[in-house]
């Protein structure tokens, strides 16, 4: 049962909610998320946030899922309803808590950056994504300890050498060794993960302690109060992250470093950040692959500016694609966190 469907739907109707209608919508939503197709969920994110869809037929296809369950659902004047339903689809996909859920939550968090909050319907969906990422960033860095298989539990028939006993004992041993192997593999995987967690922590700590930026080739205390500093420091930090989602307190680690640069009150726009990227592109060694299109605003700005060249043109195209204002100022730490999220998404998934 989709619990937030009733609450989400209220905004799209003046009349009371029909149980039968909700049931049909819920059935369609279950059909959409069952195949775990990320490309469909990405398009849902675009629809939910009011960004242009990459697949021009998506809205019709999306409508088709619901029309199949409810023949009375008319396409005409259903824009808001479809946006609401896309939000519910995203929310339900994240709640499935499968491998792809982190990716989807990350995409939603990233894509909502810079979007006018008054245009977002049902902000709970974004809140859920943030909560999911926070919870997973902690749980991914805490490994459970597995108890090894207890040999004493094996009820081997000792002493009896009859063929039946030997066969039974052999089967028991076979099962036991299979479990042991699986347990061993899990434990090895666990330990590898634990080492990875500790390595990541250690690298971050030593990076802070070292206090030197290799991209700008300066001690952190000597870095200027500029967008280039923000980008260079953030990129270096992002390279240390080996587990997704990024640490929930990435901002706090960055603040330790930025505190030495006097950046506390700085606000940066996407335009300024892109300019910083242009100035540092050779030193950053940033591979501009982007399979997420307009869902990753910073990468989208970097790529569009590089492709188009002329500032007025790329800004116009970028703003139309992402529904984000390049001139809007953000706290430096927020744009840094956004870069970390995009970098993680593009490199991990």
């Amino acid at each position: 049962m989709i619990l937030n469907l009733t609450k989400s739907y209220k905004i799209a109707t003046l009349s009371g909610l029909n149980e039968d209608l909700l049931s049909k919508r819920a059935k369609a939503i279950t059909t959409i998320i069952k195949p775990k197709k990320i490309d469909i969920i990405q398009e849902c994110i675009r629809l939910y946030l009011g960004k242009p869809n990459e697949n021009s037929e998506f809205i019709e296809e999306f409508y088709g899922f619901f029309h199949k369950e409810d023949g009375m659902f008319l396409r005409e004047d259903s824009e808001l309803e479809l946006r609401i339903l896309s939000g519910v689809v995203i929310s339900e996909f994240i709640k499935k808590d499968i491998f792809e859920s982190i990716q989807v939550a990350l995409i939603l968090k990233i894509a909502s950056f810079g979007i006018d909050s008054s245009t977002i319907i049902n902000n709970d969906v974004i809140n859920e994504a943030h909560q999911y990422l926070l919870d997973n960033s902690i749980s991914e860095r805490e490994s459970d300890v597995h108890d090894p298989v207890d040999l004493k539990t094996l009820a081997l028939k000792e002493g009896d050498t009859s063929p039946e006993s030997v066969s039974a004992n052999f089967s028991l041993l076979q099962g036991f060794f299979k479990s042991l192997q699986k347990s061993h593999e899990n434990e090895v995987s666990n330990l590898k993960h634990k080492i990875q967690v500790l390595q990541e922590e250690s690298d971050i700590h030593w990076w802070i302690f070292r206090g030197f930026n290799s991209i700008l080739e300066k001690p952190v205390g000597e870095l200027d109060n500029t967008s280039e500093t923000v980008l260079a420091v953030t990129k270096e930090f992002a390279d240390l992250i080996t587990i997704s989602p990024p640490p929930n307190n990435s901002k706090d680690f960055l603040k330790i470093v930025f505190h030495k640069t006097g950046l506390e009150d700085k606000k940066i726009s996407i335009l300024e950040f892109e300019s910083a990227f242009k100035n540092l592109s050779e030193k950053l060694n940033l591979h501009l692959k982007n399979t997420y299109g307009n869902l990753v605003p910073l990468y989208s700005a970097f790529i569009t500016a590089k492709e188009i060249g002329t500032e007025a043109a790329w800004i116009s195209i970028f703003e139309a694609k992402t529904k984000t204002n390049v001139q809007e100022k953000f706290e430096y730490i927020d744009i840094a966190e956004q870069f970390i999220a995009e970098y993680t998404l593009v490199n991990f998934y």
Partner: protein
Amino acid sequence: MAECKEEGCSVLTTGKCINGLEIDVCPHYSDQYENNVDLEESNTDNDPDFNGEDAVDDIAPDKNHSEIRYKEIHRGTALSFDDANKFAKSTQTRLVILAGMPNAGKTTSILSLLHLFAIKPSFAKLIFAGSKTLLDFEEKSHLSKIDSERIEPETARTLSGASNFMHLKVAMKDDVNKSTDLIFTDISGETFDSLKNSTQECRNFILGNRADHFVLFLDSQMLSTMSKRAATKADGIGILNSLIDAGTLSPHTHIQIVFSKWDLFETTKNKDNHEQFLENIINEINTKHSTKYNIAFVKLISRPKKGDFEFGHGLEDLVKLWVSHSAFSTNQSLKLDKSKISNSRRQFSRFEFNNK
């Protein structure tokens, strides 16, 4: 790689479309290269299945063509419940319920608002951005105009019956892309009179569940008349209490208590006495409901009759509330449960930068 197929268009270098279109609506612009089949060069002569008629059929119909041909436009009269419901499904709307006893000034307030938008370039830093019910507004405001040949402006009483709705779209003066669709109920005072006496009627009032704003009109002229003020208070607050007690008005609905015809209150005799009475009303409502509901009190003069008051006094405060608050606009800052952080076994996850 982006491209524009329109000859002579320099959108890729200047950002400006030669046809003046936005790139997300321009049919010639694409940010992905597509292999389009050039029909003129297709070798149809060698195609055994080809005939002249098929070529016509094969040309993809202009997708926008049928949308341009047939566009349903509302005739301008009041929206029925179904019309309003349909509209609410298509775009974000703010439902504003205008409640109160008969002749409290519910309809007049909205007509005055329309009038202000008509005579001023902007009002409350907003501009008029359209209405589906302009004809209805015109019909309703006829009795207030010179053409009606009346000595004093009036507003016709709203008839009892099925609920109708009025629509007004406003946009920010400084950013016309930020607009708000307001849907006002056009419900007779008699309907509210019956609501306050019946819990079942209140439960059936489903609009209350959805309302972004519930605006309760209290006639200040009646409140400043000794023989009528107690009943006016009881009737008005009765409507509010009944709807809240029946669970119809949820805490997400913003409530405005409007003291209408305030000019008549201000110019009455024994004003001090009546002011104390008014203060008691405000205290009573606040005591009972302010912990659960967001309540504002507004003194309104939709159409001044006495004193030196400006037309539509108080409407600016009201309309600003309607535009800035929605039942569904959650506090956009995130509300995260951070218990997992504090319960984490790892100091790394619990670290917080505190520059003190």
